């Protein structure tokens, strides 16, 4: 029985996290403490260093810096602005039109960039001032922007789904990507319904519809950006290139587009590259140490014991899935997404596959759970970025966020218990 080891691991991690040590170091040190109990210290040091190295040694992971880089290139404005204009032409006339525009633009941005952080800052930067000018409450606008930005993590391309593929031991990235469309769009629709209700109740200004000619012109302006979606996802699904190669092509494509739109100069590139490296390596260090922790857990037999106790607790699959969802929601509140996926996938995936759940389906459910955590304090990175862009304090956004959370939770339950929502589309494409 490895109860002592589990206690050491969990307690040391919680304490280190609580005092404010960077999360990657927390993961590394608590793994080390646990390992030192059962093997000589020097061996433990070397083992963890080796896990870090082998954890990062993966061609699939390369897609992450590349998608971050293309997101950075899009962040400079031109692409985001064209997507916002296009979204305004198609949904701007609805009640609460600007909230709809924000959600649709975030979904489109997420669909080409794969980064919730980039969506929150790029789209929020445009939409915040516009919404305020038309009499929307600042806190409401920020809440819409923050929650809709996370749809980009479920709608492909998505770095976190690549991480899940790695953690699950090679579930097809292409299948995961296609599986994300329906749940991601459902998340967007649920947020739209909440926004519309609030907008009608508060009598926010209704925008005007644009003429067909104008709508087409906006579409045409956004077309090169939208084409990226076809190239990247189409290329991966058709098997023309791997996710990593697609991400490198996305970099080239956005670079050319940014030069054509005259928004990025050659002199800006070193700074953009360095920002990319910084964002990426924060994730990479988390991946390295999380791979160490995940190895420590399987060395101590923790996944088997957790799955054993879950199954002896109840054999009702509906209840087990509910418990797993609650744990993941809780984890998402306190842990960043990447380590959460790497550490909890090996624990829960065997349980759910035993219940007959498809790993692709579970990946989507897991990421949706953790998306909600991105919008909550204390570690919600999208929450911080969204509040920063809107220049508003975190406390003020929490109240308008609550109805959005409820909407996202409803979608999460639907996606959890109706496997077809995630598995139908991949089935159509033959996965």
């Amino acid at each position: 029985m490895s109860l002592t080891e589990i206690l050491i691991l969990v307690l040391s991690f919680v304490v280190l996290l609580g005092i404010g040590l960077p999360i990657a170091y927390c993961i590394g040190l608590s793994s080390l403490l646990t390992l030192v109990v059962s093997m000589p210290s020097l061996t433990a040091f070397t083992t963890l260093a080796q896990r870090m190295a082998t954890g990062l040694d993966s061609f699939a992971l390369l897609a992450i810096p590349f998608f971050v880089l293309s997101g950075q290139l899009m962040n400079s404005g031109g692409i985001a602005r064209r997507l916002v204009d296009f979204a305004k032409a198609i949904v701007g006339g609805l009640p609460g039109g600007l909230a709809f525009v924000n959600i649709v633009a975030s979904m489109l941005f997420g669909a080409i960039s794969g980064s919730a952080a980039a969506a929150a800052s790029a789209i929020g930067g445009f939409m915040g001032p516009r919404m305020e000018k038309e009499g929307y409450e600042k806190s409401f606008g920020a809440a819409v922007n923050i929650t809709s930005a996370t749809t980009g993590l479920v709608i492909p391309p998505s770095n976190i789904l690549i991480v899940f593929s790695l953690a699950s031991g090679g579930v097809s990235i292409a299948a995961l990507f296609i599986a994300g469309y329906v749940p991601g769009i459902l998340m967007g629709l649920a947020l739209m319904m909440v926004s519309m209700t609030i907008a009608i109740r508060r009598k926010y200004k209704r925008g005007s519809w644009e003429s067909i000619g104008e709508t087409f012109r906006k579409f045409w302006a956004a077309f090169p950006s939208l084409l990226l979606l076809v190239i990247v996802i189409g290329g991966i699904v058709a098997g023309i290139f791997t996710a990593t190669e697609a991400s490198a092509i996305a970099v080239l494509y956005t670079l050319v587009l940014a030069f054509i739109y005259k928004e990025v100069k050659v002199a800006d590139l070193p700074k953009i590259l360095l920002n990319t490296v910084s964002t990426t390596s924060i994730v990479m260090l988390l991946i390295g140490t999380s791979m160490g922790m995940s190895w420590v857990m399987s060395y101590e037999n923790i996944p088997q014991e957790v799955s054993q106790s879950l199954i002896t607790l109840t054999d009702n699959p509906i209840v087990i899935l509910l418990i797993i969802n609650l744990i993941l929601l809780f984890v998402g509140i306190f842990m960043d997404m990447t380590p959460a996926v790497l550490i909890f996938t090996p624990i829960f995936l065997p349980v759910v596959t035993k219940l007959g759940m498809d790993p692709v389906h579970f990946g989507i459910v897991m990421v949706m759970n953790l998306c909600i955590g991105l919008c909550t304090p204390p570690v919600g990175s999208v929450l911080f970025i969204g509040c920063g862009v809107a220049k508003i304090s975190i406390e003020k956004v929490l109240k308008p966020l609550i109805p959005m959370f409820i909407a996202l939770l409803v979608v999460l339950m639907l996606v959890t218990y109706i496997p077809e929502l995630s598995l139908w589309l991949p089935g159509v494409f033959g996965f």
Partner: protein
Amino acid sequence: MRNSIDKVLSWGLVVLMSVMVINVLWQVASRYLLGSPSLFTDELASFLLIWVGLFGAAYAAGQKAHLAIDILPNKLTGRKKHILNVTISVLSVLFALTVMVIGGMRLVYLTLSLEQLSATLRVPLGYVYLAIPLSGLLIIYYTIVDFKPQEK
């Protein structure tokens, strides 16, 4: 000293990152345009990622960019805050020293003495793993240099 280390590190990272992009683009191009897939790009890309990831992590440590829950440090003031800051720095150094520097050096030594070579490029893997202890040293350096004793 700190500024020149920053400069060398950031330029090195910019170059590595650019090479990484070009390398993978070359892989796609060689497969589709030239018809013969390039053999070394796959492996080179993975090695570059390890280097960018680890040296980048050291750079990010210098910029204090690593994610942390800073509720407690922000709440405390004066002496208590000082003690907490010392603790956080000591623990950061402890992690970098044990796992990255000592563990990393042993890993480098082991793979070099076993003469493990990479599959296609035939590079001794020990040199690739050298990034671990080196970036561990950089993290320790940044943590110590940036530590400012607080006025009480």
